């Protein structure tokens, strides 16, 4: 029983890392623009498809890291483009319009991908996946890779946020957006950078997810996107550490529920837990109430 639980914990870590990566994208954008980017789940899906296209259509067989970086850059650029053409014009207007535009952009991405790939696609394996027996458990190279890459990216992001100029600018904007331009910070550029990194992380998550579950379809981002959003909120939306925490909590809850109950209870338990957390901590575990000036 103990080894069974330990085995499932590895699964939970894997799923949680992926949720955390996506949740980070949501939190970063929210922190900077107080806007929920509903197209983020579809950027996640594009990451998986980009990886598949790169792996199958290119004549050269590229190593894993190169494909990962390429996917992150490509999806990041797309995220920046969406921000520039769909969100920036609406920055002065009602918040809801931006959210609905995000929803529309997400639907557009999904439907365009469906036009090109109506059938589910198979993700080709990028390397030889071996199973390692370890203390009575079985861990595959893929699982180690996913957890490792996710943690590396999170540490890199944390460094970026706290030690670089762009990171400080991002945090400044999330504190008080009106004063920041007066300080000479190129707000538009920082926001574009935020979207680039957020989308890039989402794309990386998509690629890792596609490698873990190698049947990809254009609508795979919808449900995962909403779940990652929930994870970001559990942790406290706007908080980077909160997003990571929320992602791992949600991954753990989802995997562990199926251990003890039939899988139809999974959503019931996860969302009831979320509701409970929000009742006791209305702004998420690590979030703080916004300052509301009357």
């Amino acid at each position, binding site marked *: 029983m103990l080894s*069974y639980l330990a085995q499932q914990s590895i699964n939970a870590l894997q799923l949680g890392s992926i949720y955390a990566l996506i949740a980070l994208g949501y939190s970063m954008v929210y922190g900077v623009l107080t806007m929920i980017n509903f197209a983020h789940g579809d950027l996640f899906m594009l990451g998986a498809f980009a990886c598949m296209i790169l792996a199958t259509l290119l004549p050269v067989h590229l190593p894993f890291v190169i494909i990962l970086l390429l996917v992150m850059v490509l999806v990041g650029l797309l995220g920046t483009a969406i921000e520039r053409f769909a969100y920036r014009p609406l*920055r*002065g207007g009602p918040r809801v319009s931006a959210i609905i535009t995000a929803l529309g952009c997400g639907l557009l991405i999904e439907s365009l991908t469906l036009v090109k790939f109506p059938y*589910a696609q198979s993700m080709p394996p990028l390397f030889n996946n071996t199973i390692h027996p370890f203390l009575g458990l079985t861990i595959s190279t893929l699982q180690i890779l996913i957890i490792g890459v996710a943690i590396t990216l999170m540490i890199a992001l944390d460094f970026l946020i706290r030690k670089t100029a762009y990171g400080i600018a991002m945090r400044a904007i999330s504190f*008080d*957006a009106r004063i920041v331009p007066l300080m000479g910070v190129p707000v538009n550029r920082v926001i574009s950078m935020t979207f680039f990194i957020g989308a890039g992380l989402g794309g990386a998550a998509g690629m890792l997810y596609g490698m873990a579950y190698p049947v990809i379809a254009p609508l795979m981002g919808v449900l995962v996107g909403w779940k990652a959003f929930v994870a970001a909120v559990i942790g406290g939306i706007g908080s980077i550490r909160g997003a990571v925490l929320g992602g791992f909590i949600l991954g753990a809850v989802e995997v562990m529920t199926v251990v003890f109950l039939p899988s139809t209870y999974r959503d019931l338990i996860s969302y009831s837990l979320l509701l409970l957390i929000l009742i006791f901590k209305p702004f998420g575990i690590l979030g703080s109430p916004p300052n509301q000036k009357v």
Partner: protein
Amino acid sequence: MHRHTIAHRHCSVFTPSPKASRVVKKIICLSALASALLSIVTLTGCGKTSPSIKIGLNTELTGEMPAVGASSKNAADLFVSQINAAGGVKVGDQTLPLQLSLGDNGAKADQAAAVTQRLISQEGVVAMIGPNASACAIPASVIAESLKCPMISPWSTNPKTTIDAATGKPKTEVFRACFTDVFEAQVLAKFVLNNLHAKTAAILYDVSSEAPNGQANLFKKTFEENGGKIVGFETYTTGDRDFSAQLTKIKAANPQVLFLPAYYNDVPLITQQARRLGITAQFVGSDAWSTPELIKLGGADVEGAYFCNHYSNQIATPEATKFMADYQAKYGQAPDDVAALTYDAFGLLTEALKTAGKLDRQSIRDALSKISQFNGVTGTMKFQPPSGDPIKSAVMLQIKDGKFVWVANAQP
């Protein structure tokens, strides 16, 4: 919503000039209006065409199983073009061409219901072929029954499609071109016990979808009735990607056979995760495995698996050989069972049209129910009133070297 947004900046980078913005607004409004008008036109339908026999095809062109819809549509097109090239169908003293009315149910139940309504009420089809997926066929059949229009489902094996849920009696208007899950469960159970000599089996199935759910429960019942033992009975929900919890439980029970009645998009993930966890059981599938996409997506993990099917392109009856050659010539690939069954559904309907002698839904329905021998691509079938389920045989196939290979026949 929070107030402290970047809400008071009025200089946006992308502010069009007032005139340009008015023009663009006009364009957007006009295009929205145009789309709405276009929709009204397509909704109400327009124009009168020359007399023909209108047959509706309600199939899964978009959604979770587009490969199924594509096969169905291809077979339908092939049949209609062949019949019309030969002059048409002789109904009474007229020879009329066939006309196909296509509807996409997106593999969703409510869309299937809407399409059924549209085909029967608006397009005025004399009969409807489809849907294929049981989750769509069951609601569609309720509507076809209430609108008194004959319906033949090529591929839906769930018993509920032809049985009225309230009375338990067969529906009058609904038929199918394939056998039912009841028969399939017997075939599979006997195959596992007698051919594979396996006494223990485990089942992993999608509890939220009609076809896999029905098949899992029927297999369990039949297997245990015939002396087998089900050591694992796990469920998942449509859309799940991770089955490690359920598979780990199954691994602990150590079954000889793992029965997976899933559609072709779930099977690759399950088999891959099962093998990775170290499950060595023999995979056995249902007729939902029959799409070639499954081999493409499943690769080495589905190699060696057995499954039950409606026909094999290695059984050389004259009708089957001709159909396979024609299909290959027109579409460049071998037909799967959905295509073969759709072709047979159209064949059955044409037989009924000839016998009925008039384009009246009631007569067509009566003629269908009395068909005593029809030599189709998928074998010989007959209907026994009042049931809409044909009596026909099944085949067992195995996936070998990336192809479907015939193993055995099973008679009713």
